[in-house]
């Protein structure tokens, strides 16, 4: 096995040509400027389109705030109720559930499992009560 290593070395010839350091500096500065140009352009466009949607957004937010406060009041009125808004995996909220001697985390798990199984967001299901069977 007598390999021609000169040939082998030749395989990794350099692509392109050497360039002057001055040119490189100009290219680098210019390139960085192009990146800024492109993203500033995009920023402007986003601010414009964003402006159009902000008015709608304002309305939606007002509505949501009202809902949240309503839920808050209910929760305060009934200290055993949990609002599993903080559930990491299941999307949406699930109204509120009475728990009888079951740790919150377990209840959240069970609800997430069932919701996941049924391919239904939690806020379309209503759990009335979860109770550990003793």
């Amino acid at each position: 096995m007598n390999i021609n290593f000169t040939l082998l070395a030749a395989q990794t010839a350099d692509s392109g040509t050497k360039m002057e350091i001055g040119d490189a500096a100009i290219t680098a500065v210019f390139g960085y400027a192009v990146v800024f140009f492109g993203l500033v352009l995009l920023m402007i466009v986003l601010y414009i389109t964003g402006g159009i949607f902000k008015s709608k957004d304002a309305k939606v937010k007002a509505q949501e705030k009202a809902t949240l406060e309503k839920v808050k009041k209910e929760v305060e009125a009934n200290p055993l109720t949990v609002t599993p808004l903080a559930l990491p995996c299941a999307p949406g909220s699930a109204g509120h559930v009475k728990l009888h001697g079951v740790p919150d985390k377990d209840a959240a798990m069970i609800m997430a499992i069932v919701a996941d199984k049924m391919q239904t967001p939690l806020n379309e299901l209503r759990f009335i009560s979860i109770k550990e069977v003793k």
Partner: protein
Amino acid sequence: MNIVETLEKLWNDSGFQSFFVGEGWKNLVMIAISCVLLYLGIRKKFEPLLLVGIAFGCLLVNLSYFGPESTDALYHPELWKDFLDEESPFYHSYGNIMAHGGLLDILYIGVKAGIYPSLIFLGVGAMTDFGPLIANPKSLLLGAAAQMGVFLAFFGAVCLGFTGNQAASIGIIGGADGPTAIFLTTRLAPELLGPIAIAAYSYMALIPMIQPPLMKLLTTKKEREVKMEQNRNVTKTEKIIFPIIVAMFVILLLPSTAPLVGCLMLGNLWRECGVTERLSDTVQNALMNIVTVFLGISVGATTAASSFLNIKTLMIIALGLTAFAFSTVGGLLVGKLMYLLTGGKVNPLIGSAGVSAVPMAARVSQMEGQKANPSNFLLMHAMGPNVAGVIGSAIAAGFLLAVFGK
């Protein structure tokens, strides 16, 4: 069929003896390097989805390729030399690769033709929530600033004697975006693909070690403690329109970005439009995983000993680190500028997230912010620059491609 001849043929083909012929010892070094990479990927969890494949590809090629006479090799650098050689009868002939290549040569066609990075960007788009960026468009400035390392490393590479094409490919390591780096390098300086890909993925994994010292160095405790206001809500329609607008403006500006930005935005549109979950799911999972499999091993294959073991590789590793560091610095400096201009409303820590490396860099911003002020939640604010950095790197790559590409 002479028994002695057969025995001799088997012995000559065997890798055991090839280590001791000519520069065969270099393969042993590469095998050791591949084991180190496997260790980093598996134990240290350095982007294992790609690094394990790259390292195993490196192992396979250095076990089977000892020079042009290794006809059973999985990868044949000399076929690709012919492919790039205008004088060769096989110039630009994928047919020749198909007919005479090994398994990894054939899988490498997808890298060479730029298919794999584009398809991965389909999946990345489908996995990315651009909401924080839409809510806060000035994040884009941070995403732009954090390309500083790209151009500084490019300049440094030219100073160290690399050609323009090579320097551009080395610089893009600072974009902290694996598929973009692979895409650009394949087009501009394929001979450096191995070291550049390995550097890019390794440094991405090292973000939690590279960035924090620079963040502490360049920001004051007061700056790091800044809590930012909650982002505004982003409507579904805005999220649907966003990919269409970005594709339009970026591709019109730099058509060379079309494969990357086009796929990124199409993937994102499938994610957001609400009527194509099937496709969004497939490009994130089945398709992306299959492409990752092919991309990993075929990129690994480019690390044949002869092209990897030289001083250039060490320079690339050094320049890549410089690139990452200065991209971080660029993001932080513009972050500080925004802190000043907004009268202290912007936490400059989110600037370093502009290097992309989604979502790792954003998590580092979150962590450092919380160290300074335990009630500080920067994650969503850092996601804006973080995803902006992906677009920024694509534009930087597009610029370099426009200047140095044929």
